[in-house]
């Protein structure tokens, strides 16, 4: 097994405390960045690392930072997206609960690189233990001079604030998250302008994921080139995979970018009960589903995208041969219908409609034309909405229906016949 980087402290007792984190080499990277590097050098190192945003979009982090306009003396913000809401994803939670200082060190280095004057950490409302650990760690760091005014005796100061979400999936979308911090309803904004230009409170803002930030200290300490070499040519570093579903040992596992899907499953003890794989969702509910034919796919952003899906948050959901795809899709679409923010028409109406149809099929009221209707809904939600949630809801719909169409056709027929039989009896 390769070296553990992000998870290196997870099995150490009390790794969430400052003392243990520092005894394991923590905050050395921060000292290096603040005393030996300019902000521009930090950004250059991150660019060289090929680090891509770990929230799901996989956009190169260094390039995102470079979108910021030159400083104008006014405030600019770093926002930490800890609203981990993509179904199947639970990696950021582990970081915040088991090793919050790694994230905080990343926050301060990033804040230094982008010239942030304040950092908001937006934590999913259900993540109370994670929020408590994060808050405690922030207090410790502040008391030790690692946060707050004049960090480590340097001229750089950073203030932080923890904001708890209220449970809306959409607030993981960066502009909805910004609206939420501003005290408004979590509705995604029209873009442009992008947050780097006009974000929180109308000021330049960088929104980064927890895991992204946890990578930063290692990149600074050991170099961008080292980090890049861990992964594939265009996808640097290691990746946390949140594996769930029909595997023997579900959980978060750290593997290099580009590890084949088959190995990811194997690392979790293989498929439960030695059964065969039927389907795998590689990156959270909004990633198109893969089939048993795709098990050799290298799990990195580029390769999974080339296969017509997306690595997303790398929440791997394994479904074995006895899983009912119609039911699985109905669960996913129920989620999207519940979580659509209601702002723009296609997603608001399309998610509910598809959910209604799927539940009608399950109730034995399906029609053969339903599959084409569902595919039409998917097409009409894709690329026609304000934020990526429309395409995100369309992806499972389209992929399940095209890759498992015979199963859907059979289910419509069988469930209808059964319902009629029951009615007759």
């Amino acid at each position: 097994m390769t070296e553990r980087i992000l998870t290196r402290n997870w099995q150490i007792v009390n790794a969430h405390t400052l003392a243990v984190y520092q005894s394991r080499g923590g905050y050395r990277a921060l000292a290096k960045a603040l005393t030996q590097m300019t902000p521009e050098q930090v950004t250059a190192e991150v660019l060289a690392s090929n680090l891509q945003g770990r929230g799901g979009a996989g956009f190169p982090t260094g390039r995102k930072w470079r979108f910021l306009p030159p400083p104008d003396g006014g405030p600019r913000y770093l926002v930490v997206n800890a609203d981990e809401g993509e179904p199947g994803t639970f990696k950021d939670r582990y970081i915040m609960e088991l090793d919050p200082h790694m994230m905080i060190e990343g926050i301060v280095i990033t804040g230094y690189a982008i010239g942030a004057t304040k950092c908001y950490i937006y934590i999913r409302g259900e993540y109370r233990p994670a929020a408590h650990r994060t808050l405690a760690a922030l207090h410790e760091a502040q008391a030790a001079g690692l946060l707050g005014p004049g960090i480590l005796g340097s001229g750089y100061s950073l203030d932080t604030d923890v904001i708890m979400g209220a449970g809306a999936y959409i607030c993981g979308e960066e502009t909805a998250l910004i609206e939420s911090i501003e005290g408004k309803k979590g509705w995604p904004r029209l873009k442009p302008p992008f947050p780097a230009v006009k974000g929180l409170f109308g000021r330049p803002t960088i929104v980064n994921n927890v895991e992204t930030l946890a990578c930063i200290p290692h990149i600074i300490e050991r170099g961008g080139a080292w980090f890049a070499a861990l992964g594939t040519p265009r996808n640097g570093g290691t990746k946390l995979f949140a594996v769930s579903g029909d595997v023997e040992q579900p959980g978060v596992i750290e593997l290099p970018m580009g590890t084949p899907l088959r190995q990811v499953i194997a690392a979790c003890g293989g498929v439960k009960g030695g059964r065969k794989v039927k389907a795998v969702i590689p990156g959270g509910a909004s990633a198109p589903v893969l089939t048993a034919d795709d098990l050799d796919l290298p799990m990195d952003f580029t390769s999974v995208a080339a296969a017509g899906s997306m690595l997303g948050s790398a929440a791997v959901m394994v479904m074995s041969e006895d899983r009912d795809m119609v039911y699985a899709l109905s669960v996913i679409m129920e989620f999207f219908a519940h979580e659509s923010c209601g702002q723009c028409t296609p997603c608001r109406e399309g998610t509910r409609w598809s959910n209604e149809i799927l539940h009608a099929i399950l109730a034995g009221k399906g029609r053969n034309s339903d599959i084409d209707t569902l595919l039409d809904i998917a097409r009409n939600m894709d690329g026609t909405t304000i934020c990526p949630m429309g395409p995100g809801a369309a992806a499972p719909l389209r992929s399940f229906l095209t890759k498992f169409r015979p199963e859907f056709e059979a289910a419509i027929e069988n469930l209808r016949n059964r319902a009629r039989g029951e009615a007759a009896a």
Partner: protein
Amino acid sequence: MSGELVRLTIDGREAMVPRGTTILQAAESLGIYIPRYCYHPALRIVGSCRICQVEVIGNPTPQISCFTQVAEGMDVLTDSPLVKRVRTAVMEFLLLNHPIDCPICDTSGECDLQNFYMTDGKHRSRLRHHKINRTKRKRIGQNVVLDQERCILCSRCVRFLQEVVQTHELGLFGRGAPERIDLVEGKSLDGNNYAGNIIDLCPVGALTDDDFRFKFRVWDLSRAPSICPFCSAGCNIEVHFNTELCWKNNAMRIGRVKPRLNPHVNSYWMCDIGRYSFHYTEHPDRLKQPLVREGEQQTAHSWSAALALAAAKLKQAVAGGTGRLAAFPSLYMTVESAFLFRRLFSDQFNTARMGFQSGIGLTGGDGFLLRDDRNPNRLGLELVKMDRKGGEPRDELLERLPQSKFSAVVYVQELPERDPPAELAAALRGATAALIVFATNATPFTALADIVFPICPWTEDHGTWVNWQGRAQWLTPALPPMGGAKPLAAALAGLAPFFGLNFGQGAPDELFDRMANEVPAFKGLTLPRLGGEGAGLPGFPASRLTTLTETKER
């Protein structure tokens, strides 16, 4: 933006528009209308309804034209197969949870769901499941009724209340398909004088007007431009009426009044005081024939007979310069009428007292549209210089009438409810030889007058009003005069020959030219210049002539 021009192509036609223009606006400049629900030129762009999507060549996904700005060399298609597909999809999505109760919906006929279904929908329904049930017929303001089921969540009403009047009564609650518009807890639109505008803004039948609904079908209504008379703002309005189907509407020809765009005066808006005060003009107590008192009875006379009687009474009362005349012009009369009134009474009788600086209705302005001065033409009367000796406040002169031994009183009604009490007319009986009244509606006061002339209210009148800004606006009649009522100017022109004056038949354009010739403030102004948005009079600051709001940074 700096006025730099960008060249782009829309549906194969070239357009040159300033940088910063949206595709929707650029298309509009070519006469290409792109459907829209959430977009309104006076509100923040939210881009949520998605009906305005267009294809921008080179872009894999359709773009919303209300928000996307033009770029050099852009090639836009508003009618491609992709555009048709996404628009039909939006129509299908919007109608999923819409009750499609057009036959009983008051907005039917002017509903954008209907309009765009015909242009961009025409799909067959594929819905087989239950529509979402929501609140219907919820009264959210004095005249505003909300039907949440018909609502398509475009949020125009919410944004108007947030951005324009900033009172925040409405909000969007919940999320996803069951989302709905509703009153914010503890708030009501009852006291909001601008609530009616959200009915105009609603592109569907979710917000309907309780003062109007179920009285006319909108396709039965004709529209005529007019000007709101109920304060000195002079908001441009449109009168919606039907002269034949009034039995549906309590015999009233007017169904409703809507704002008409004038960017310098009222933008797209008007206030509820203006919107709901027109009813008196169609009331059964409207005067339809001249009345002459004989004993205790007023009897109907012809115009010519009544005019001759009035002239005789006036001449008799003020003969030889011994008798005195008190004249009450109205702040609702046009500049032309005021000019005739001055020529007839102030210039003729040097003993006349003029009472027109009414103090009535001088409060309650809100710094947005509604002004303190609840009269349409105070400035106009001041410019005509009604009384060279300086007038006297109307109410004060009225009050001291019985004691002051005026031999004749000429009174022009402003609004029926502003008429003095009947006791005043009774008290004048002994002291005054003649009480001559020009009025639109019968009141206890007019009932005791010696001669009553039925005149047209603003809905039937012609002429010029000058609003608080110093903007002269041309009022045209929306309706033919009711019964034998005549415009005040025509009535005064009919009286003029008895005093050796000649104003012709009182034709509006002739009178205007004559007035403009003699009143310095209007020198050089011609009728065509008044058309459309009106014309600022010289001597009034340009800043005042183009500001919607008075002083407050809102």
